[in-house]
């Protein structure tokens, strides 16, 4: 960690808070931008650590957005965790609260369905981007590329619990290293 802590916390806040309002369909939509900011722009974390934190968050229960809390924690300790969580959740939650008050009128607004159906493929595209970015830092050799491809195919074709796939990936990583 470099620079004074207060400045870093302010940096976390100003980096994450705007992304809260463009997280189309959830946190995975903003992971590419967060990775770019955290790794390339601010040099808060190395690329590899970022990808590992993403993976650890996938292995834990709870909403995906907690990966952002974890990143804040790794960068700036407990204050970092608090600031990152509030920054990524605060703006979207405030908006949700305000919208909830106009609930009944919004429900009948004829554009709602168009917005929902229009956003869906964008959210999918951004989630794919997240997958590719994490794969790029994880897949250093053919064995790891095979793990990524194998897990992706299994998810596509079966309904296996994701936790088993993550466990299988970790075992495969260990096995390839030993062999």
């Amino acid at each position, binding site marked *: 960690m470099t620079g004074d802590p207060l400045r870093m916390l302010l940096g976390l806040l100003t980096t994450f808070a705007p992304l*809260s309002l463009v997280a189309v369909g959830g946190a995975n939509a903003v992971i590419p931008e967060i990775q770019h900011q955290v790794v390339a722009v601010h040099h808060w974390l190395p690329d590899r650590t970022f990808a590992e934190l993403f993976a650890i968050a996938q292995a834990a229960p*709870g909403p995906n957005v907690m990966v952002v809390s974890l990143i804040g924690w790794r960068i700036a300790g407990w204050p970092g965790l608090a600031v990152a969580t509030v920054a990524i959740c605060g703006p979207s939650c405030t908006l949700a*609260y305000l919208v909830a008050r106009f609930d009944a009128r919004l429900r009948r607004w004829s554009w709602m369905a168009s917005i929902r159906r229009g956003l869906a*493929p964008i959210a999918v595209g951004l989630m794919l981007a997240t997958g590719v970015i994490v794969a790029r830092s994880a897949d250093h050799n053919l064995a*790891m590329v095979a793990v990524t491809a194998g*897990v992706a195919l299994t998810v596509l074709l079966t309904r296996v619990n994701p936790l088993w796939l993550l466990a299988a990936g970790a075992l495969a*990583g260990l096995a390839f290293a030993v062999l």
Partner: protein
Amino acid sequence: VSEIPTERQGTAAPAVSRSDLFLAFSKMGLLGFGGVLPWARRVVVEERGWLSDRRFTEDLGLCQVLPGPNIVNFAVVFGSRCQGIGGAVLAVAGLLLVPLAVLLVLAVVYEQWRGVPAVQHAIGGLTAAAAGLTLGTALKTGWRARPAVTLALLGAAAFAAVGLLRWPLIPVLVVLVPAAVLTERWGRR
């Protein structure tokens, strides 16, 4: 006109206490590995009977349009309807606090052991698998939605711009989101 009474009935706040809100959302957060939404339906609709299935789906639709995690939005919308701002805060806190504690235990273990070569290899495999999980889930979601060709192309453009060209997200969305919504709106006519 006949819809109005049911709508009123639907918007009436379910009688849910603050502690019930917190506990129910904690349960969803803790059980929800790789997606909390299925648990939200199970707890709110099936177990507690706080919302009808139809009403839950409507709420979810609203939360999907809003930015941010759908489940956190649902916690805000449902919590505030039951108990005002305090209810929203409690529902979100329930959803995040317990899983966050679990996540931090995992993270501390990772920090302690990451220097060990065997752990590094396992984490490497875990990360490769997490990438595959994200790619597979995205492809599955996209495939199931079967969007029109133009919409699929806009999704592909979002992927290419942000994932491959690494363009900044906000300008990309400022262009693509209105394009997608208008395409959807006019394409249906």
